[in-house]
């Protein structure tokens, strides 16, 4: 649609609409389109095909051209923490990551630190069983920090390569729950000062502009090091990630594309940009 014929005003309008419908947000969409207009006149682009190519490479630059690999510990146990709002896909993604790292020859331990939600521990146990990894758990209602601490301790003692901690979903607006998350982090650092080596923010791609606020608050609270964008197998495009990249620079490391164990992919900015532009 956008790649035929000459560059016209209506092309820029169509592009802005495509971006808006992809959840890019009005501020970012207007900014990107005005940048493109400037580029087009500076480079004297005449056909829309070249223009869209130019735009696509702008998007790829913004999304992060070079994939940022998972940050492991220099030596010894690597600790990864999963955080995010309710229902975004944390527990499921943890299961997928367990399978992923195990397939790469890593010994993985899981920590069932969602001690609050009904059957959260049971849910993680099914994933642990499915993927053949150990899970450390306490009773429902126990202190999540204690579970995180015990998981790190047990994983280190038993020579694991990776310990991954599942946490309860929480809205970023709940200050006490954000404090709890900070505490979980601090408690693990007693055992391993550099932990967590990755704090993954799990974002649901059907989320609108609120994802930007979620990212801001979670980053401030627990220094998010990577984003995992889930449910991209739906029709939502996750365009809000552009604003998140612009303002917060957090790398997107993986995407979730389904409910099965293997429905996890390393983030590919080119594919994402293609899909965004429909």
């Amino acid at each position, binding site marked *: 649609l956008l790649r035929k014929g000459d560059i016209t005003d209506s092309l820029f309008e169509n592009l802005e*609409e495509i971006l*808006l*419908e*992809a*959840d890019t*947000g*009005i*501020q970012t969409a207007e900014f990107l389109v005005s940048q493109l207009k400037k580029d087009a006149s500076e480079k004297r682009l005449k056909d829309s095909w070249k223009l869209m190519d130019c735009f696509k490479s702008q998007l790829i630059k913004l999304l992060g051209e070079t994939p940022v690999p998972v940050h492991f510990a220099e030596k010894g146990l690597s600790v990864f923490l999963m955080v995010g*709002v*309710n*229902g*975004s*896909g944390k527990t499921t993604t943890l299961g997928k990551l367990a399978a992923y790292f195990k397939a790469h020859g890593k010994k993985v331990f899981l920590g069932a630190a969602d001690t*609050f*939600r*009904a*059957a959260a521990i*049971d*849910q993680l*146990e*099914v*994933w642990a069983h*499915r993927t053949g990894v150990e899970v450390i758990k306490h009773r429902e209602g126990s202190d999540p920090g204690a579970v995180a601490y015990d998981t790190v301790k047990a994983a280190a003692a038993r020579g694991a390569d990776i310990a991954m901690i599942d946490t309860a979903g929480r*809205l*970023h*607006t709940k200050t006490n729950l954000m404090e709890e998350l900070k505490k979980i982090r601090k408690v693990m650092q007693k055992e391993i000062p550099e932990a967590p080596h990755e704090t993954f923010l799990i974002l*649901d791609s*059907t*989320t*609108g*502009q*609120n*994802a930007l*606020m979620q990212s801001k608050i979670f980053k401030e609270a627990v220094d998010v090091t990577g984003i995992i964008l889930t*449910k991209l*197998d*739906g*029709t*939502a495009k996750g365009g*809000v990630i552009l604003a998140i990249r612009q303002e917060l620079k957090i790398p997107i490391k993986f995407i979730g594309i389904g*409910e099965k164990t293997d429905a996890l992919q390393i983030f590919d900015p080119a594919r994402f940009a293609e899909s965004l532009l429909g």
Partner: protein
Amino acid sequence: TLTERLQAAFKKLRGKGKLSEADVTEALREVRMALLEADVSLKVVKEFTAAVKEKAVGAEVLESLTPAQSVIRIVRDEMNLLVGGPAKLQKSSKSPTIYMIVGLQGSGKTTTCGKLALFLKDSGEEPVLAACDIYRPAAIKQLQVLGKELEVPVFSLGDKSDPVQIAKGAVQLAESSKKNAVILDTAGRLHIDAQMMVELKQLKAVLAPTEILLVADAMTGQDAVKIAEQFHQDLALTGIILTKMDGDARGGAALSIRSVTGCPVKFVGVGEKLKALELFYPDRMISRILG
């Protein structure tokens, strides 16, 4: 807020008698922006601003209002029309009343089933919960934990049985134990997963639920229109429940969903506890969306 933005945009139009087309076009740019920032879907924003334009151009600016306030009043009126009034949960004349709960993955269905069970109990009804999610790990257990907390029976046939059989079993349990309501918790699914949508159509065909409620996350973005359209087309929804309204998402999805389905928002979820279910208040929602 939108009011402030309109006041700023209209600074130069003091004391005019009618709203000109130019004034209105200027105002609608602000309205469009505000609605998009609030996650209202683009198609709905376009329809809404067109409706406002029609009412606003040539409209008299009342003595007591500024031009900005006049536009705001028209916007609010148009929103009130769109959002509609509060709507009650329906009850069937033939017991048990069957409530079918559907929606995307992670939207809050299972938790909402628990909340609805409590709501019904508090209203003097006697609900049974049906564990029709046979896919998600520990989904049945999750519902059983909630049922135990509420002292509401949960009917399950495990995760190797067909959801239709489970639902029928729950109805039989309700009938034999003199309960008058059955709440069907279904698995989260994508609206584009044809096979999974067929499962819901079968459930509806066999169980004939009185209410089919779409549970949607208040933070849903532009996709709300596609989701709601498909679910409505496939099932003829009777109502909407908007969850996680205790967050700071503006909730424009409510407008989008209401607009494309014509269904009323019956409840809002305002927390993780089972008590955290409220009736829907249209003006609160409108204020939230307009900022």
